[in-house]
């Protein structure tokens, strides 16, 4: 695998992640982990009017998963629940600005999976 995946932006967001830490007020939290590399993530979401008002994450993992969580949480702020739930691997690649390749796909999608889980459980609780 070429080193392209360690682009400036990835390294920079890995070192200084955005939206990292637990929100003081949130409506739903969701934990997920990736048994292959031992990454884990907890997503916290504050919902207002069916939209993501605030979102943050805690966890540990490789540069791709951590920078990915940082970029994803930036990306989904203000987004409607239904749009945010539609984020798939193709969208994640767009947000990252690169294709991490098959070996690192699970790292890249971890935060998106956790977000989807959070939104799903919010909707179940607020039917």
């Amino acid at each position, binding site marked *: 695998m070429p080193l392209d995946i*360690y682009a400036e932006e990835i*390294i920079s967001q*890995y070192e200084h992640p955005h939206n990292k830490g637990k929100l003081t007020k949130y409506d739903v939290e969701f934990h997920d982990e990736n048994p292959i*590399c031992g*990454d884990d993530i907890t997503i916290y979401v504050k919902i207002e009017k069916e939209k993501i008002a605030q979102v943050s994450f805690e966890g*540990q*993992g490789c*540069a791709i998963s951590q920078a990915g969580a940082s970029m994803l949480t930036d990306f989904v702020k203000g987004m409607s629940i239904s749009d945010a739930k539609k984020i798939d691997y193709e969208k994640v690649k767009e947000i990252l600005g690169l294709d991490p390749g098959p*070996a690192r796909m699970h790292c890249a999608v971890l935060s998106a999976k956790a977000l989807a889980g959070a939104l799903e459980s919010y909707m179940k609780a607020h039917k």
Partner: protein
Amino acid sequence: MNHSSRETDMKSGIDPTMIKKDFPILKKKMNGKPLIYLDSAATSQKPKEVIDAITEYYENYNANIHRGIYKIAETATEKYIESKRKLARFIGAGKFEEIIYVRNTTEAINLVALTWGMSNIKKGDRILISEMEHHSNIVPWQMLAKRKGAVLDYIKMDNNMEGLSEQSLREQIEKGPKMLAITHVSNVLGSINDVKRITKLAKKEGTTVLIDGAQSAPHMPVDVRAIGCDFFALSGHKMLGPTGIGALYGKTELLESMEPLFGGGDMIKSVAFDSYTPNDLPWKFEAGTSNIEGGIALGTAVDYLERIGMENIRGHEKELTAYALERLAKINGLKVFGYGRADIEKRGGVVSFSLDKIHPHDVSAVFDSFGIAIRAGHHCAMPLVRGIFKVGALSRMSFYLYNDKSDIDSAIDAIGSVKKVFKVK
């Protein structure tokens, strides 16, 4: 390779430059760079003669073993049994009947848990393993303990997290477990357990002993009768053989007392409508058509290892490990787990490390870009890595007879590159 490292490589009686030539994959490239393979604890590479043995079987004498009254069936049967004779000699077993072919170490351990364990473990009995085990030597016992209402105990790691705590070892053995299942060499730390002494202690309590030899049989001389264990499990693919073939050694009287695991062809002497008579050892435990080419090729792998000499291989890996530990010690922010250079006698060719602020997955990915294969993760030992070391994952280099000091030099250079990519000093 520089002059000084070549001299030391020769000391062990092994010339890795020559050995590398026997392994076709080591002439290949990965990501445009010559492949440097430092993941032999996961699986070993295969010499040409092992690969050829598989083709030769299929091209020249492919036939099912046992009962075929024609030339190529006889040849296949002979070669298959011959491979068991070789393996028996290789690990110091008395006879080939004590060698059961299975898929791998995992299957060997499960076989013991599901046969010996199901008949001998009762409610409240103790099963003893250790905190440094691979999942393969944890989960089968957890399953058995759950089925039987038995107690699963762990020998603790010592305070330095290098080897097993002697105090815990003695305390646990004194409780008189029915089964002690323990690894010979840790796949995470490379720590070598003195299984001969441990077996002797356990035997005083009448404990049945299983040794997980997945990381020892490929790398050092093994003598199961000198160890005194009841069972010994190994994987062919970690010792130059193909995947899908491994072995369980068991003492004859134990194997004879055990029920077969699977029923079917080959494992029976006779079958009536209402009953069956199991076959003699070792066939009693090998139901259905065996992995014939795997067994034969494993025999070829044993030939190769014996030609090089297991003492030489152990000596070579000791030198490589000492060299790696020396070089790694000089790297800022790098922590090596397990015994240090002073205790090299207690360490196999496995070096796990962590690098400050950089995830092992990223370390491994940068190594990959330089054509270097190392492993990152919990190494199938989550209780040890997560529970004891309290880390999510570790990077691991592991060595074999085809590695040399220049491979380690390349790895050290790659660590420099990792730091550069992540802007860490």
